[in-house]
């Protein structure tokens, strides 16, 4: 049987251990935003080139949009390949790079797709 004071101490220690386990890592919002901006900066040129390629090959209709998803998957997998195990250092949720910015480059993709399709296959 423990002394009441010892019991109290033990309880406090347990509580401290619990608190230490649940304290979240402090993230800097500024750097999170800068990393997201870097991803966007990478994504836009890649989707522009993907749109150009879709125009060159001559996709029209739904297959062009399927090609956009192909380009997006190439982008994401190359990004994950570059930072194999360090992704959790740069993003609070590492899996979010796979579906966070799906529509980020869609507009520039469509612009260059239609542009090159018109240049090559219509005129």
């Amino acid at each position, binding site marked *: 049987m423990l002394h009441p004071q010892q019991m109290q101490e033990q309880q406090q220690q347990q509580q401290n251990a619990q608190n230490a386990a649940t304290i979240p890592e402090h993230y*800097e919002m500024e750097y999170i935003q800068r990393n997201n901006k*870097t991803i966007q900066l990478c994504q836009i*040129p*890649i989707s522009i*080139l993907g749109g150009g390629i879709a125009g*060159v*090959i*001559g996709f029209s209709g739904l297959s062009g949009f399927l090609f956009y998803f192909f380009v997006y998957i190439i982008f994401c997998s190359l990004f994950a390949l570059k930072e194999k195990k360090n992704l959790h250092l740069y993003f609070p949720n590492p899996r979010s790079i796979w579906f966070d910015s799906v529509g980020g480059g869609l507009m520039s993709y469509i612009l260059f797709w239609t542009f090159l399709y018109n240049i*090559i*296959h219509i005129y």
Partner: protein
Amino acid sequence: MKGVAKLSGIIGIGLFLHTIYSVLQHRKYLRLTDQPFEGVPLDIIVECIISLLLFSWGIINSQNLIPIKASTHLAKKSYDSFDNRPNFTTFNNRGKYINEIIKNN
């Protein structure tokens, strides 16, 4: 590493421009020989995909990410830089008068 990445990006753009030129040439050839257009040839498609891979590899590897955990940045700072408060610096001190006295003596 960054130089290689930039070079591969430039090669990707170059291959892409070459595919545009070759598709235009292919269509012109078909028009001159009165053949119907049935899709782009396979070698041009392969060249396109290679150019896309090279360009995206180059773009992704030329960018740097920053670690977001605050402890990694705070560990590099010294305590003096935290303790420094420029707002509390005073410029109205006795130094002016002491300097005069020292000069006169």
